[in-house]
């Protein structure tokens, strides 16, 4: 008899059902809290998995050279401020340095060329024009859906390859091969269309699916060599040489930049650690904010238990008069608080499940509900019931039978 019995819960369930409207409003705080915590955590986890999938697709030995430094601190979390605000740029000199140092590797520069694109249906503004080299598809493990990617012979030709999304938007066709568009006063002919890139939600990368690709030399020619690569992709010939290549590139670039490391050379595995860090931080932040509503919900439960205790003071008196001990009274009210909070928790988890399904159907996000998050949410809701129910329940339990019988 030391613990809550089944009878307590049955009675509590009955009482909760009797005041259905009030009970639902009380649960609302817990419902919102649990639903938002669980779905935020599962969205975060889903994005993490998508990023991992993409990295595995590209290959974990791909090396990315970027301007600016993204540093990861000792505990593995990204220090966002120092990462984002350090400026710097890559130059053509850097590109040739990378080409020299990374022996035997495939080097692909990526540069955004500014300027308006005029397609058959007017201006196209959804994606950038990226000047890159012929090896981009092989480095990213990407194939063309139609036509071919440009080759080394195309450096002086006005040819372009479109991302799948760009093809659809610019020409309203799946296969716009041979169509032309205007860019910086020249006419470019569509040579090929790439397959869809795996989606990269929340990524800071340029959206490859909306981009138009032109040969790197062509891009330089259009801008009088003023276009600078924002990123250089390096794929070592041999995955085992990746670390060595990274070191070689770094020391080569350090020389160019006068020993200041305002650039970063990252392997995909490191990139993953970085994005994971950012995502974890974001997830924790939002989940933390959502958890506040759990606290508020708990206070709601405390409030309603208090009301219930006051309303039923006379009943408490009667029960005590016929021989209920303090603990038995305590259990009755505790059971009610726990039923409210667990009910809210269960409904919250169900709603989080619905949110997951809706997000999967309507967006590119693929949230993954983790059982840990569900268990923790359920545990927290039980805890809330016990913690916030106990104060008013104790008040009822300790009431003197005579005082309670008089109804306050």
């Amino acid at each position, binding site marked *: 008899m030391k613990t809550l019995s089944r009878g307590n819960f049955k009675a509590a369930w009955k009482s909760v059902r009797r005041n259905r409207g009030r009970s639902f409003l009380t649960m609302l705080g817990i419902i919102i809290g649990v639903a938002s915590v669980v779905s935020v955590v599962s969205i975060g986890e889903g994005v993490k998995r998508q990023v991992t999938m993409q990295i595995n697709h590209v290959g974990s030995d791909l090396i990315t050279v970027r301007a600016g430094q993204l540093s990861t601190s000792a505990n593995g979390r990204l220090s966002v401020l120092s990462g984002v605000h350090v400026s710097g740029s890559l130059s053509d000199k850097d590109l040739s340095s990378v080409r020299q140092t990374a022996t035997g590797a495939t080097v692909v520069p990526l540069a955004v060329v500014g300027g308006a694109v005029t397609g058959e249906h007017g201006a196209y503004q959804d994606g950038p024009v990226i000047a890159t080299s012929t090896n981009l598809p092989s480095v990213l493990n990407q194939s063309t859906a139609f036509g071919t990617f440009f080759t080394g012979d195309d450096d002086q030709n006005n040819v372009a390859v479109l991302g799948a999304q760009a093809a659809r938007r610019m020409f309203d066709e799946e296969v716009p091969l041979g169509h032309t568009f205007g860019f910086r006063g020249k006419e470019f002919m569509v040579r090929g269309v790439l397959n869809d890139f795996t989606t990269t939600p929340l990524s800071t990368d340029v959206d490859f699916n909306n981009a138009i690709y032109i040969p790197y030399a062509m891009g330089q020619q259009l801008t009088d060599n003023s276009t600078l690569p924002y990123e250089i992709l390096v794929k070592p010939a041999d995955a085992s040489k990746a670390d060595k290549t990274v070191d070689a590139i770094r020391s080569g670039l350090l020389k160019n930049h006068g020993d200041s490391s305002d650039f970063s050379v990252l392997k995909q595995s490191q990139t993953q650690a970085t994005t994971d860090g950012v995502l974890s931080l974001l997830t924790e932040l939002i989940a933390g904010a959502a958890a506040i509503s759990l606290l508020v919900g708990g206070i709601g439960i405390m409030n309603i238990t208090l009301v219930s205790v006051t309303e039923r003071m006379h009943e408490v008196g009667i029960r*005590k008069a016929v021989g209920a001990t303090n603990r038995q009274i305590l259990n009755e009210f505790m059971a009610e608080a726990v039923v409210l909070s667990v009910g809210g928790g269960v409904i919250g988890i169900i709603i989080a499940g619905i949110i997951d399904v809706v997000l999967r159907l309507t967006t590119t996000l693929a949230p993954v509900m983790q059982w840990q998050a569900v268990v923790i949410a359920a545990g927290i809701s039980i805890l809330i019931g016990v913690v916030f129910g106990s104060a008013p329940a104790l008040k009822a339990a300790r009431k003197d*039978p005579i005082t309670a019988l008089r109804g306050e």
Partner: protein
Amino acid sequence: MPVIEIKDVSKLYGFGDATTLALDEVDLVIEEGEFVAIMGPSGCGKSTLMNLIGLLDRPTHGDYHLNGRKVSRLRPNHAAKIRRDTIGFIFQSFNLLPKLTALENVALPLTYKNISLTKRLKMASNILERVGMKDREYYLPSQLSGGQVQCAAIARALVNNPKLIIADEPTGNLDSTGSRLVMELLSEVHRMGNTILFVTHNPELTRYATRVVYMHDGTIVQDEQTAIGQVASTAKKALYKTAPTSEEDDLAGVSALMKAVPSTPSKRTSKPTAKKNRKPNKTTKKAKAKR
């Protein structure tokens, strides 16, 4: 061995100037099998005495032995268990839970004894049959007449088979038919060997009692044995031989019934301290009445 043995029990409410003496060194011994009626004007401490005897309340001073066991300083949980097992309490306002059926109400004390649900309901059903409410088991209190509700309350008091039944004005909210129903039931319970204490304002009802105790201002002023079927002599005086309230009494706020009760304690030797205590007490009570 007496069932109830109360010695020098006092009960005070409030602090300092506002202290009210509800019970003033009361002595009372009740033997097994007695059917005691307790009478007296409102506010004389009858209910306080009932609550103390029923272990719903604790005396400020004095000793209380129930079945030879000292119970005046029990912990609340311990008192609850004794209430559950040895005392049945009947209230003026019935005090059934309005949302439970008669059957569930009667089974309530058994809930706190860890008896299984089916057994509980069976026991409750048996008791309800005994009080003649078998066909109204599934009625809610609001669907029953006052007398029937009180019968269900008596069934609840009886369900744990307690030796002692305490009824605080059980007929106070009932009409004469309901009163008779309830009192006949109580006297039947008495015939089965239970000790019963009941508070009443109605002198007629002393017919059922074997003993009548009169209280006034927190003390017992008279204690007489009566035969069942007879109205107690003091009560009879109040019933039939009441002089009309004189102008003087009216000014003093004293009713004829109050005058009919002898004001000097008959059994106990009066103590000077007790008398001293009583006087200021009266004034506070009058002040209360004015409010």
